[in-house]
C-alpha cells in the first residue's frame, strides 16, 4: 500500500448536542476514487465539507500530500469541487465558468483560453463554450461543473452527489465518463453518494457510513461479499434476516428450524446471533435434504426478467424474499415451497441494538 494522499484522522463534528461525525478516520491513496456511501444524515456530506474546508471540524486533523490543512481556508486548498446543484455561475458563459478558477490563479491570455478549451473538449462541451447555463441541460451543466473543477488541476477532487439531479439513464452514462476521466488523469477523488449501485460501479473503495461513523472501507466486491457490519449487508444489496443461535462447536440453529455447522474457527462467541441471506442465495428444492432448508408459503410472485421474486411467509409469520430463475416451473401463489441455502452463503452477525445492527462474526 502506497502512502495515503488524503489522510483524515479522528474527525469529529458536533452541532450543539448533535454529533454529525464521531471520530472518523479515512485514508485515500493517490489516484484512487473512494466513495462515501450511506443514507441521508449519516455524515458523508459533512465529512466532504470538512475536507473541503467549508465546515470546521470540532476535533481531528486533515492532511493532503503531507500538508496539514488545519487553518487553510477553502480557497487555499486547491481542491476541485463538484456540487449536486451543479452550482454553475448562471451569469457567466460556459467558458467563463471554466476560466474562473484559472483567473484566480493568474493564468491569462492564450494559455488560459487553451486550457479552458481543452477542459471543455474533455467533457464534450467544446462547441458550447459561448453558451449560458440557462441554455444547457442538467447533464451539460454538470459537465461544466466537472470541467471547471478539473481545469485547475486540483490536488483532490470532491464530488457531492454529482449525479443525483439527473435522470437514470444519464446518470449511468455520466458515471462511466467520470470514472474514465478520473482514471485517465489519475486524480484522487472523494465521491459522496447515497446510491449503492453507483458506488459499486464507480469506486476503487467504498466507505460505508452510518450515524457519523465509518463502518467499513473496502473495495466494492468485499463490501458486497464480506460486509463487516449488519448495516452494510442490509444497505448494500439487501438481506433477509433470521434470528439464530450459535452453539459451542460452531453449530448454528435458526429460530425457523434448520441448523447447520460452520467450518471450525477459534473465537466465535456462542449465543444469540443474527443471520443474513441474500435473496439470490436461496434455491427452490423438493424438501429437507443435505442443505439447510426453509419452508414458506408464496404470498406473491413478482416477475423481474431473468429472475422472479417470491415473497414468502414463514411458519413463524415472518416474511422473506427469494429470487429464483424465471422460466423454470415456478410455484403458484398460495403454494408452500421449500428453499435451501448453502451454509457458505450465510453471514452471521452479533445481535446489536437495532434491527440491522451488529458486527460480523462469520
Amino acid at each position, binding site marked *: 500500500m502506497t502512502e495515503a494522499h488524503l489522510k483524515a484522522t479522528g474527525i469529529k463534528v458536533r452541532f450543539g448536542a448533535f454529533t454529525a461525525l464521531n471520530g472518523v478516520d479515512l485514508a485515500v491513496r493517490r489516484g484512487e476514487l473512494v466513495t462515501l456511501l450511506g443514507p441521508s444524515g449519516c455524515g458523508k456530506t459533512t465529512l466532504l465539507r470538512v475536507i473541503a474546508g467549508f465546515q470546521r471540524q470540532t476535533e481531528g486533523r486533515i492532511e493532503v500530500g503531507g500538508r496539514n490543512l488545519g487553518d487553510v*481556508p477553502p480557497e487555499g486548498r486547491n481542491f476541485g469541487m463538484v456540487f449536486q446543484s451543479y452550482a454553475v455561475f448562471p451569469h457567466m458563459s460556459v467558458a467563463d465558468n471554466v476560466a474562473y478558477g484559472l483567473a484566480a490563479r493568474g493564468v491569462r491570455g492564450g494559455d488560459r483560453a487553451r486550457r479552458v478549451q481543452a477542459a471543455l473538449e474533455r467533457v464534450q462541451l467544446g462547441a458550447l463554450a459561448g453558451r449560458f447555463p440557462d441554455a444547457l441541460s442538467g447533464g451539460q451543466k454538470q459537465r461544466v461543473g466537472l470541467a471547471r473543477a478539473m481545469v485547475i488541476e486540483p490536488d483532490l477532487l470532491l464530488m457531492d452527489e454529482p449525479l443525483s439531479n439527473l435522470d437514470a439513464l444519464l446518470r449511468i452514462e455520466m458515471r462511466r465518463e467520470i470514472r474514465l476521466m478520473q482514471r485517465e488523469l489519475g486524480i484522487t477523488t472523494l465521491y459522496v453518494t447515497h446510491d449503492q449501485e453507483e458506488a459499486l460501479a464507480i469506486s476503487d473503495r467504498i466507505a460505508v457510513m452510518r450515524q457519523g461513523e465509518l463502518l467499513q472501507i473496502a473495495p466494492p466486491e468485499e463490501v458486497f461479499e464480506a460486509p463487516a457490519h449488519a448495516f452494510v449487508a442490509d444497505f448494500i444489496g439487501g438481506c433477509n434476516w433470521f434470528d439464530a443461535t450459535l452453539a459451542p462447536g460452531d453449530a448454528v440453529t435458526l429460530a425457523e428450524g434448520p441448523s447447520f455447522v460452520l467450518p471450525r474457527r477459534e473465537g466465535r462467541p456462542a449465543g444469540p446471533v443474527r443471520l443474513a441471506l441474500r435473496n439470490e442465495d436461496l434455491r427452490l428444492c423438493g424438501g429437507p435434504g443435505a442443505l439447510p432448508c426453509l419452508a414458506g408459503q408464496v404470498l406473491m410472485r413478482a416477475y423481474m426478467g431473468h429472475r422472479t421474486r417470491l415473497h414468502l411467509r414463514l411458519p413463524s409469520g415472518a416474511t422473506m424474499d427469494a429470487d429464483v430463475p424465471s422460466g423454470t416451473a415456478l410455484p403458484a401463489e398460495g403454494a408452500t415451497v421449500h428453499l435451501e441455502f448453502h451454509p457458505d452463503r450465510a453471514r452471521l452477525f452479533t445481535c446489536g441494538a437495532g434491527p440491522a445492527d451488529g458486527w460480523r462474526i462469520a
Partner: protein
Amino acid sequence: MSAAARLLRDPWPLVALLVVAIMLVFVAWPLAELARQSLIGQESGRFGLENYVAFFESRYFRRALTNSLTIAALGTAISLLLAVPLALAFARYDFRGKRWIEVAILMSMLSPPFVGAYAWILMFGRSGMVRQALASIGIDIPPIYGTFGIALATAFSHYPVMFLVVRSGLSRVNVGLEEAAASLGRGRLAVIRTVTLPLVLPALVTGILLVFLGILADFGTPSILGEGERFPVLATLAFSLYLSEIGAEPGMAATTAAILVLLAMTLVIFARWLAARRTVSNDTSGTRVATKLRGGRGALMSLGTATLVLLANMPLIVVVGSSFLEVRGVVFQPALTLANYHNAFAALGDALWNSLRYAAIALVMILVLGSLAGYLIARRSGLLSRLADLLIMVPYVVPGTVLGIGYASVFNQPPLMLTGTASIIVVMYVIRRLPFVARASASIVYQIDRGLEEASQSLGVRPLGGFRRVMLPLMRPGLLAGAAIAWVEVFNELSASIVLYTGGTRTLPVAAYQQSLAGDVGMAAAYATMLIAITAGALALFILLRGRGRGDGDVGVL
C-alpha cells in the same frame, strides 16, 4: 491566521458591526430618548407614567386613538374589498388588457397618499367639483372630510400592497390540492372555503398587517382630510403636540409617539403569532396556469377589473387633470392653462432640487447597506448578524412622524448636531427604507444556491471576491427592483420630513403638502403632478436598466 488577516479575508463581522452601530445610533437611540421623555411627567417633571395617565384621561387624546384605530380598520376593510377580487381575478385568469390593468393598479402606489386625499377634496370637498355639480342638480351630499373620507382615501392608496401580497399567496397555492378537494366531491365554493382560504391565510394576514400599519402611520391623509386638529389621529396629534407654535408639549408628543409605536408592535407580534399558529407547510410544487378567458366572459372580466382600477385611480387622474385647469379663487374653471406650473415653479425654491439630491444620495446608501445587510441576514448566523437582523426591522413599525420627532429631539445637540441639515433628512430616508431593501435582498440571497459561493471559494477566490463576482451580479435585478420601490417611497416621503425640514431643506412632498393644506389649489395640483411624473419617470428608468444586461439565470426575483 491573525485577526486582521481573517477580517481581510472575510470582512462580514465588520459589516455586521457597522450595521448594528448605525441602527443603534439612528434607530435605538432616538426611540429610547422618546421613551425616556414619555416617562418624564409633563407637569411634575417626575419619572413615571404620568403622561400616559394624562393621555388616557383626556377626551381629545382618547379620540385620536379611537380615530386612528377606526380609520385603520375601515381603510383595511375597504382595501380588502378592492384587492381580494382583483387578486383572485389576476391569479386565476388571463384576460385582455391584464398587463395594463396591473400597471394601473401599481400606479396608485406611485404618489404619496396625501395626493390622493387632496384629489378627494378636489372632487368631494366643500367646494369640490363633483359635489358642486351634484348640488346644481339638487343632490346634496356631505363633504368628504372625516372618518369615512380618510378611510376611503387611505384605502385607495394602500390597496395595491394588499393586492400584491394576496395575489402572490394565491398563485403559490398548489393547484393539486384544490384538484384533490374537487375530485373528492367538493363544490367550487367549498373548495375555496376548505382548501384555498386556509392556505392563503398567511398572505391575507400579511396584507392586512401591512395596510393597517400603513394607514396607522399615514400622516398626510388624515392631516388634509381631517382639517388639521378637528379630526386628530395619533400621527397628526404627535406632530402638532411637538411642533405647535403655541404651547408645544414635547412630553405628550413623545407619549403619543410611544403609544403609536407600541400599537404597531403589538399588531406585528399578534400577526406573527397568528401566522405561526396557522401556518401549514404549503407544498408549492404544483404551479397554477391561469385560465384564459375568451369571448363574453373575458370581456366582462376585463371590463370589471378595469372599472375597479379606474375608480381607484380616479384621484390621480383628477389631480393631474386639474393641474392644467385655470383657477379662480378656490374653484377650477373649465379652461386649460399652464399658469399653475408657472406659479408652482416660481414658488418652488430648492424643493425639487433638494428632493432629487437627497433621494439620490439616500438611494445609493440604501442599496449599499441593504445589499450587505441582506446578505448578512441570509448567510451568516452569528450573534452580530442576528442582532443586525433584529434591529434592522425596527423602523418597520416606527411611523415617519415618530422617527422625525425622535431625530429632532436627539440630534439637536453635540455630539451629533444634525437638525436643520440635509444630512438628517438623508439619514432618515435611509433608515426608513433600509428594512425593506435589506429584506428584499435577503430573500434574493436565500434563493441563490449556496453552492455558487462555495464553488467560487473552492476555485481559489476569497469570500469577498466571490461576493463581488458571483453574488452581486446575481442580486442585481432584485436589488434594482428594490431600489425602484425605495425610490418611490423616499422621493415621496412626507411624514418625517415635515418634522425635520427647515427653510433650506424643504422637499417637493413638503411643498406639495403645504400647498394642499392651505394654499393655491392649482399650485397644489401642479406640485402633486410633478411628484407623480418624476416618480413614474424614474421607475421607467429603472425598468430600462433592469431590461439590459443578461443572465439572471435561475434566480427568480419579483
